[in-house]
């Protein structure tokens, strides 16, 4: 039993990403976009070895289902490069699990998408998605702290 729990804890980031991506539903989690939360968190805030490739694959899958060729994949790579090269912000010791950087990560992508298809309905929908992703960022990342004290 102890072994099972430790294995679960070890693979939690991968399972969480897969779980959120697979449980895609219209409006609440379209194309499994909520998987961006664990992808960001376990790549930049609580980095896990081997997760970057996994995150890249799931960004690619989100893009495929959104019909946005390599869009989030490019943004992920861009942030990976920027965060890796800089030493101004220590992502692992930032308040609120670096939620402000996550806002920037998601916000920059959504802002580009707003301008590429500008209508009132899309604008409202994109704002909703931005708010929803950021609202869920705190409880989903808190779940990690709760399971892995």
């Amino acid at each position, binding site marked *: 039993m102890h072994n099972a729990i430790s294995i679960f804890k070890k693979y939690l980031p991968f399972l969480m990403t897969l779980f959120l991506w697979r449980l895609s539903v219209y409006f609440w989690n379209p*194309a499994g976009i909520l998987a961006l939360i664990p992808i960001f968190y376990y790549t930049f805030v609580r980095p896990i070895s081997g997760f970057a490739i996994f995150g890249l694959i799931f960004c*690619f899958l989100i893009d495929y289902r959104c019909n946005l060729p*390599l869009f989030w994949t*490019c943004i992920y790579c861009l942030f990976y*490069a920027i965060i*890796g*090269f800089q030493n101004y912000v220590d992502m692992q010791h930032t308040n609120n699990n670096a939620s402000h950087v996550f806002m920037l990560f998601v916000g920059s992508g959504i802002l580009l998408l707003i301008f590429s298809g500008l*209508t009132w*309905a*899309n604008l409202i929908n994109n704002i909703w998605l931005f708010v929803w992703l950021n609202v869920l960022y705190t409880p989903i990342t808190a779940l990690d702290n709760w399971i892995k004290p």
Partner: protein
Amino acid sequence: MTKDKLSYKLTRIIKSALAAAALPVFIIYIMVAKPDYTIMNALAHVILPVAHGVGDVITWPVRAIGDGAHWVKEMSVLRKENKVLRAKLDDALANKYKCDVAIEENKKLENELDIKQASPYKTIIADIQFDDSVFHHNTFLINRGKKAGVNKGMVVVSFENRLVGVVLDCGSQFCRVRALTDADMKIAVRITGSDISGFLQGNGKSGASIGFFNDTQFVGRKGLKVITSNISGVLPSGIYVGEMKDEKRVDVIKPNNISRVMVLQFDDQGSYK
């Protein structure tokens, strides 16, 4: 590995450099491979089923609860739905004879005018697996692929014979369909009962709109019916698209309102170009 170690810093810089190097590769690929994205789609055809399979295993309890709740909800509205359907059936039967006569008259006129309508020789029934309507892109996955005879470019219609979308990309067991509301969707259409043609374009969440009419004096109005016109040779003509809501907007079917579709296979192995 502590953060102060040189090897840690070096590894981090190398990884970041690799990510930075991947960026121009991806951007060049997007520009070069447009619009087919052959490598990207081929990769997705392998990764997507694997991720789905593993995802199915780990999410089954949640999906089972969701399916159960959905089943209970459906059962609760069954009686009400039955009443509505009976009323609709009565209406449909009342119009049936008129429609039969109109169809026969239409056939006669088509023969006289020598109009050849494309008609499907095979239909493939598929379930909508995921509605991926997000941002201004509206695509969805169906559970039939190349193995069932579905190919890229085929027409997807609802069970009411309304155009739903066009197959965008096809794996062996699944297909990605571009809905009419997708911002990249542009099809040639015609107003029924007239020679006025135009182009229908998806607007994302807000539906679809019609424009670029061949008659510049024409002003659309509510209630006009729109069908495909085959001007660009992409879609066969005569498939019902929707009804106009005002001067520009067209009431098209959205994938989140249906759960099952038909893929139409026309002559020339579904290729219209």
